[in-house]
């Protein structure tokens, strides 16, 4: 049994930008930086034990997805039961900042969050979304659909009201 793994550096060169965007979108800029570094350390720890190199990107993002899950658990534990006040990220003032969107993304359950980010932010096919989340392709579609519906409800409540009234 011997698998030829590329130098870990090439994974960083190819995926660091996307990995960082994914985590900042999923957990916010500050915790995103922490999760990003934790993902690299965890990946480096596990790397020599890999038995195949078929989908290293998927493997890397699965580790990142688990960091998002851990982060969501921690946030839940520390959250006050009364008021939910999601951290509002500070964005550079290019006039296109979309803090409202990312704050909303962070209220999604982690599987939906990761599925939506992989599908749309990173433009990945459903097969890849499934590989990252660790589910079937059907379940990946379902997670993307459910996540999107939830975002729509959070971001456009007036429309939801129009429908109900």
């Amino acid at each position, binding site marked *: 049994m011997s698998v030829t*793994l590329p130098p*870990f*550096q090439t994974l960083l060169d190819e995926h660091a930008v996307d990995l960082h965007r994914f985590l900042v979108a999923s957990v916010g800029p500050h915790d995103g930086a922490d999760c990003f*570094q934790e993902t690299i*350390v965890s990946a*480096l720890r596990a790397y020599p034990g890999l038995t195949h190199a078929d989908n290293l990107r998927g493997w890397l993002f699965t580790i990142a997805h688990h960091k998002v899950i851990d982060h969501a658990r921690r946030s839940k534990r520390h959250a006050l039961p009364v008021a939910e006040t999601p951290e509002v990220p500070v964005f550079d003032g290019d006039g296109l900042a979309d803090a409202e969107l990312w704050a909303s993304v962070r209220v999604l359950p982690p599987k939906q969050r990761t599925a939506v980010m992989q599908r749309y932010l990173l433009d990945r096919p459903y097969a890849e979304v499934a590989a990252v989340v660790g589910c079937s392709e059907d379940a990946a579609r379902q997670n993307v659909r459910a996540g*999107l519906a939830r975002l729509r409800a959070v971001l456009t409540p007036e429309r939801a009201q129009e429908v109900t009234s």
Partner: protein
Amino acid sequence: MSAGDDIVARLRRGTGLGAHPAGDPSVNGRAPAGEGAALGDLVAGALARADADDLVDVAWTVEDTPVGPLALAATPLGLVRVGFGHEDEVLEDLASHVSPRVVRLPARLDTVRRQLDEYFAGRRRRFDVPLDRRLSRGYRLAVLEELSRVPFGQTVSYKDLAERTGKPNASRAVGTAMATNPIAIVVPCHRVLRTGGALGGYGGGLESKVWLLRHEGALLG
């Protein structure tokens, strides 16, 4: 456009995430310099943490020198590679022969970088860093160890080295050992010439060999 489509478009744009807005042709798929630098700092910080946990098997960097860029790599045991050649090939080689945990971590190469600077500035005649010679085995290793005894400013022939290693007829094998020397310059294969003084070959190109020999005063003109 429905609200849902609008949300998808906003997700795809990824505005404000600290990298370039997707689809902006002016940045051509690259993060703007400032953001790139910040990301580089985050990666470097993560690698420093990994290094503290002994998770970096091969630390690597590239050093610009008068004979061109040199890829430098070290394991916890010592300097394992000083290579001319293409950076990607050097890394692939290290990944398959030492460990795939190869990352850019210049701090682990500070000592050898400083000594190389001094050597190229004419202020150092011998290198004093631990070597990890695991990329060489058997007779090649014996030849390279013997070669390390040849001092600054002197040259030997392939035949000399063959004799000094107890195999007077092994000049060709000595040539192969030189051609596959993993630790160029520090293990001075540039000091090996053909019998009679012809230059022979050099992995870093003959121009580099000539430059190094002139620099050491071993070749005049």
